[in-house]
């Protein structure tokens, strides 16, 4: 029998962000996006930097979170996300992320041989995801205020 909902657990080393029954989950896997519905085959994957979205069991708008690297274990009735960092849109400091983005870009553009390319690229990605998810809140916010 197929389970009707997935228990979505999102934890980071600092805290538990979410433990909820959901209808579907979209994960930013390291090798590509993963859409998970109840009854999915067991799977384990690394996560990249990206957006995680899920739809609550009762339906409604998908909820989007920024997830920055980690792992996810998928079982038929449960998805466990062990993220290094996970943030809700309203928790993201977009200004800070923009500054980080500018810094990373400057570092990647410079010809300084000391620059750690991998680190700068990761910083760039992370800033990108943060800004994208963070800006979401603004849009949602301005919509509702209109």
């Amino acid at each position, binding site marked *: 029998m197929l389970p009707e909902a997935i228990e979505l*657990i999102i*934890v*980071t*080393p*600092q*805290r*538990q962000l979410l*433990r909820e029954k959901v209808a579907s989950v979209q994960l930013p*896997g*390291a*090798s590509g996006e*993963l859409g998970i519905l109840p009854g999915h*085959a*067991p*799977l*384990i*994957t*690394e996560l990249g930097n990206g957006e995680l979205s899920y739809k609550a069991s009762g339906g409604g708008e998908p909820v989007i979170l920024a997830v920055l690297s980690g*792992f996810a*274990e998928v*079982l*038929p*009735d*449960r998805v*466990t996300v*062990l993220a290094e960092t996970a943030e809700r849109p309203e928790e993201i400091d977009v200004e800070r992320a923009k500054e980080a983005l500018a810094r990373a870009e400057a570092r990647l553009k410079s010809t300084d041989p000391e620059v750690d390319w991998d680190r700068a690229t990761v910083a760039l990605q992370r800033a990108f995801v943060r800004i994208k998810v963070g800006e979401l809140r603004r849009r949602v916010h301005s919509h509702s205020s209109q």
Partner: protein
Amino acid sequence: MATLLDFRRRIRSVKNTQQITRAMKFVAAARLRRAQEAALAARPYAVELARVLRSTMARIESPEHPLLAKRPENNILVIVLTGERGLAGAFNSNVLRKAHEFFRSHQGKKITTIPVGKKGRDSLRRAGFRFAAEYVNVLARVDFKTAREIANLVADLYVKEEIDSVYIIFSEFKSVMVPTLAVEKLLPVEAIREDDTGKSEQGDRENKKPSETPIDYIYEQPEEQILSKLLPRYVETQILRAMLESSAAEHAARMTAMEAATNNANDVIEALTLHMNKVRQAAITKEIIEIVSGASYGA
């Protein structure tokens, strides 16, 4: 003989000290609450990670990884978690005593240490131990970065075979009153801690959920790659947990010590006040005698 004024001064000085100890007690209580919350908040991650790692290891036929490799223990690395400062009762000396016990029972092996906290560093340096690294002023706000740094360092040394095992010695936080000391083996990663999963395996077996039966996973990445990412994370989490526990235990110890000091100051003040009153009484009596005898003399 101590005069009335001497007593007044001493009482005032004890009262001042008492104010300090009382304030420290309240500060420690507030910090303890925060440390406890942080330790509690970090628990779900540790629990879930241990569970995922265990089920991954169970599904891989013969898990192989440098961090799992067992060697005869000749070079031992010991991480010792103490506090940054004293005034916490026997907190620091308890940990250090446990550490020395451990060193004694591993005589003949080459021991390297990583002290975390100023107190431990100073004491171990005096005792002449070799440091692979030292971390001070990191416990006021325990963060994941420090735990990761330590984990990376020990994992690196372990993979290079410079060390054959890694232990961590710290105070566990069980309750405010009962200090417990723990010696845990970090590397090689052996059995994943049972109590990290929150319940024992045995009770679990009977009512196993379908999700926990060992069906094979789909691996989005090669399983070795997943394992090699999960294992260091596990070591990090273990260190982070130890740091959080130790920090909570330190605040608890300080709170208890300062509470005792405050109560003690009360006793001292009481005793001094009693003494002072006696001396005053004696002085008054003496004065009366003098006046009376002087009066009778003049009459």
